[in-house]
Structures are given as C-alpha cells and as structure tokens.
C-alpha cells in the first residue's frame, strides 16, 4: 500500500481522517464533533475531496492532540456500520494479525 502520507488529496469513496494520539500513540479517528475518538464507529465520514480536505485541515490544526493525520478509505455497511477500507486500516483498527506466542 502506498503510504497514505504520500497521497494527494483525492478520494474515490467514503473516507475518514485518522491519526495517532500524541500522548500515547494510540489510533484515533476524527469525529464530526471536532474531536477524536479511539473508535472507528465514531469517525466523521466524508464523501468528496473537498470535504476530505476540510476535515484533514481541521485535524491537522490540532497539533497538540494528534500526530500524522491523514485521509483513509472506509467501507460503509448497510446498517451504517463503518469498516476500514484497506488492510492497513484494518490492522490499525483491529490490532496485530499475528499470534504473539508460538502456536
């Protein structure tokens, strides 16, 4: 996956803005209420490149709270459930795909 850090702002489907929390590095999502949440289900969803750019700008403005904000794709399920749009984001939201102990 091309690093999202290098992406031009042009989205092709529903997207969100994600970052890491400054104090402890955990994965966070930009919410519609100008804040952050550790849960993807709280993420603000954007559908146009302009909306995406605006949400990212707002996220970037919070330099104290978050590090390395970027736009990432999501999948919207019928019931409105938000799923990560690629493997990288799946791993960021669900955690490691591996067993830590020998099995």
């Amino acid at each position, binding site marked *: *996956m*091309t*690093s999202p*850090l290098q992406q031009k702002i042009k989205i092709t489907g529903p997207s969100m803005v994600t970052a*890491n929390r*400054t*104090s*402890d*590095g*955990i*994965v966070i999502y930009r919410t519609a209420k100008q804040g952050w949440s550790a849960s993807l289900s709280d993420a603000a969803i954007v559908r146009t490149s302009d909306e995406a750019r605006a949400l990212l700008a707002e996220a970037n403005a919070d*330099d*104290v709270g978050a*590090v*390395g904000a970027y736009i990432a794709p999501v999948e919207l399920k019928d019931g409105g459930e938000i799923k990560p749009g*690629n*493997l*990288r984001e799946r*791993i*960021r939201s669900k*955690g*490691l*795909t*591996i*067993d*830590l*102990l*020998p*099995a």
Partner: protein
Amino acid sequence: MYAYDELDRTLINERVSEFRDQVKRRLSGELTEDEFKMLRLQNGVYLQLHAYMFRVAIPYGTLSSKQLRRLAHVARRYDRGYGHFTTRQNIQFNWIKLSELPDALAELAEVGIHAMQTSGNNMRNVTSDQWAGVAPGEVEDPRIWSEILRQHTTLHPEFSFLPRKFKIAITASEHDRAAIKVHDIGLRLHKNADGETGFEVLVGGGLGRTPFIAKTIKPYVAGRDILSYVEAILRVYNQYGRRDNIYKARIKILVHELGIEKFAREVEEEWKQMGHGALTLDHSVIEEVRSRFSYPPYEKLPHMPDELKQAAHDPLFERWRKNSVAPHKVQGYSIVTLSLKPVGGPPGDATADQMDAVADLADRYSFGEIRVGHEQNLALPHVAKRDLPQLWKALDRIGLATPNVNLVTDIIACPGLDYCSLANARSIPIAQELTRRFANHDTAEMIGRLHINISGCINACGHHHVGHIGILGVEKNGEEFYQITIGGRADENAQMGALIGPAVPYAEVADVIEDIVEAYLALRDRPEELFVDTVKRLGVEPFKERVYATR
C-alpha cells in the same frame, strides 16, 4: 563486559533530562510535531501504526544480566511485556507511551543503556560480531574498535548531520557474522605481512531501494590510523553526498556514481591533507579502551567433561548441541545461541519473562553476559561445557532451545505491516506460516543451512536481498504480494539474490517457498551442497522452471 566511563554516564543522563523537557513541551503544545520529530528520532522514538516505537541500542551486541533485566522491566512496566530484537543489535519496544518515555529512558540510563544513534541521519550504533572476544581464531576483539569509533562519533558534529544515516560494522573473524559488506563502512580486522593489526576497509554497501555490496577501498589501514581514515571517508561523503534527494543520499550511491577508484583517490587525498595529527590513535588510548573490556576468570576445564559424555546419549540434547553450541576460544567452554525463532512465533521477539530468565541463566552459566546477533537471536558467550546439559533443560523450559539456528526456520523478518507505518505487506505472519511448514526438525536438518529473510517494503530492514531466499512485500491493487529472490548471502561472499519470477499473493508464499526447497532437494548434487551453492552452480532457471511450471 564493558565499563562505561564517567563522561558517558554524564552524557546519557543529560540526554534523559533534555528529552524529559522536550516531551513535556511537546505534550503541552509548546513544541509542534514538526519541531519535535527530529528530537524524538534522536532518542530512538518512531511513530508506528498503533503506537510509538522505541529503539534502544545494544552496542556491539553485548549486554550484562543487569541490563537485560532492566530491558525486561521496561517491557513489562512500559510496554506489553515483550520486546523485539532487530538485525542491528537494537531492541525495539512497540507500545510505549510518549508521556512515559522519559521514565523508561531514565530507568535504562541507570544501567548504562541509551537510545542515542538509533535513528536519524547520524552515525548509527557501530555493530560487531556477536561472538566478539570469544570466537576461536579471531584476530582480536573487534569491540575495542567498535568502542573507539563509538566514542569518537557519538555526538561529533561532523557525524551528527550527515546527508543520511550511516552504519559501520566490524568483524575480526574469517567468517563474517556482522554482515560488513552490506554496511556503509565495513571493517575487517586482520594482520599484515609484518604481523601488525589493521583493517581492510570496505565502503558503499547497503540494502534498501538500491542495494550494493561494499567494495574494498583500502586493503590495509593500520589500527592507529583508523579514525583518521574513517573521518576522511566521512568528509568526502559530506562534501559530495546528495542532500537534495533522500534516495540518493547514502554513501553507496556516491561510491557507485564516482566509481570506487575515484572515490578512493578522493579519500586518499583528503586523508593526506588531514595529516596524521590529532586523530592518530595513541597506543595508550587503544590500551585504555582495551582495558575496559573485561573477560571472565575462566577455569581450566577439560575439553570433554563427563557431564557432556553422559548427556550425549540423549538424542534431543545432541540435536540441540550440534545445532546451537559453537566452539569457544577457551578450552572447556562454548558459545550457546538462544534461538528467538520458535515454531509459530514472531522472529526476534522475547517476552519480559524470557529476558529475566535468560539474565538469571547468564548469571549462573555465562558470567553474567549475553550477546545479541544480527540474526535476531541471543547468545550466552561463556558457557562451561559441563553446564550444557543443565542449561539446555532450563532453556527448553522457557522456549529458547529450538534447535533451528541457521536452518530454514531461523527466519529474519522485519515488523512489516503488523506494526510498521512504511510497510506494503506483512512479514511476521509469513514467517510464522513458514516455521509451521518446516516445523519438523528432521526435515529442517536434512535441508541444511538456509536463511530466509523477509522485508515488508523496499527499505529492506529484514535484509531480504541477502537472504538465501529473500521475500519482499509489495502492493498490487491494494493486495499484499511478495517478490521472491534466491541465491543472496550476507557473509564474506555477500551477494544479492536474483528474482525467481513474478510476485505471488500472500496466500501462496509458503507454497512457493516449499516448492523452491523441494527443487533444491532434487537438484543438489549431494546432501552437503548448501542451498546457496546449488543456486550458484545452476543459476535461477532450474528453480524457476520447477516452481512456476505448475502455476
């Protein structure tokens, strides 16, 4: 072991309080991330997918039991109870909170451990043979020279703002365990015709996007001149090195573009102009550093103690001994490698409990000393042979007696997409699946020496180019694919592997590797012919035919 001097301790402590202040200012918003990033990188702190990652240096791979216990403590107290040993004699913690980092650093500083020079465009941790000082036939202990270079380059202005990061490795044995040919500068200690000790100097090696094997720039530089010679190389690099393009900034590119002859002439010229003044090492300075390395009070022990003769009746013990125990320079002792590659485990990881247990075993059986090698395994460097059976049982109980050192399941893997924000694809689960496929130790032994190296992107942290089999994660349309190379090697005959065919999807990698190994078993002309030698003799084609015929 090595004893840090007062200067070092003061320096380390100053860095800790400096960083504490910087973190405080970052958390309060006084420092922006842009301003802070450089500072955190200078202290080994990266941002990964899930958290900050903290990289700690283990200079020349030597640790005391006290230091290892402290690493275990940091893993337990500040992380999730484990750490990851890397290919450059570092350990990484994957889940550290920025707000707690200064405390972790301070606790490490108390035992002389720091994170300086583990990231950023400076002189990195000078690595060395993990068997330094104990390997039979070694010219002399290469760590003396690692340490001299470390002292000289730590925080030296000329080395702190290089065009790119800079890595040096040193070996003093015929067999290169430090992978010196894939470093910016590789140093090989040897004796000249007059019996004096000096270095063959190699330059311009490296992996990453544009891999190169280092070339010899000067066959012999006397020990006392090594600092000035390395500095001359650095000056030429600083003068010409491309700062405008991150992909071209490594010295390997400069050496390649100028050609080794021209580069060598430039260095020679610079070296002459520098004269042989301040940087010439006084005999007393070398001896002073030498005296800081202490060697244990070895006993006079028999070559073949009774304990060992008896244990030889146990085939499981014998299998482990033949695989993981190496000769020591002192009669009656051995070097024991502790495999951090259990079947199904993430390569190079150790839990805090394992670290504590190894520290205890080191106290009991290895004069309190532990080594870390570039293959992501640990070693106990001074084990009396009579203690081997006891040690084996103890290691087995903590899962560190897998008899697979240098075998197909002794895989080097980078963190890949499970942790790393630069990754294209996952590395660890590929390694885990491969260790399950080759879990049978009889099969692994029958296959013989075979190094599989895996990187999750072109940065090549997993050294895939020089794996006998190399696996590189790439991305195709959002899916994980893997390019597979064969015939690479990282030793004194270092060379890059050759691509065997089109990249294969995640789900097929283990099958393809099994096919490659089967092809090798069919193609080797006798059981002793190693995988790399078969590839060398026959080239890639016969492997390609067999592997891709059915795909």
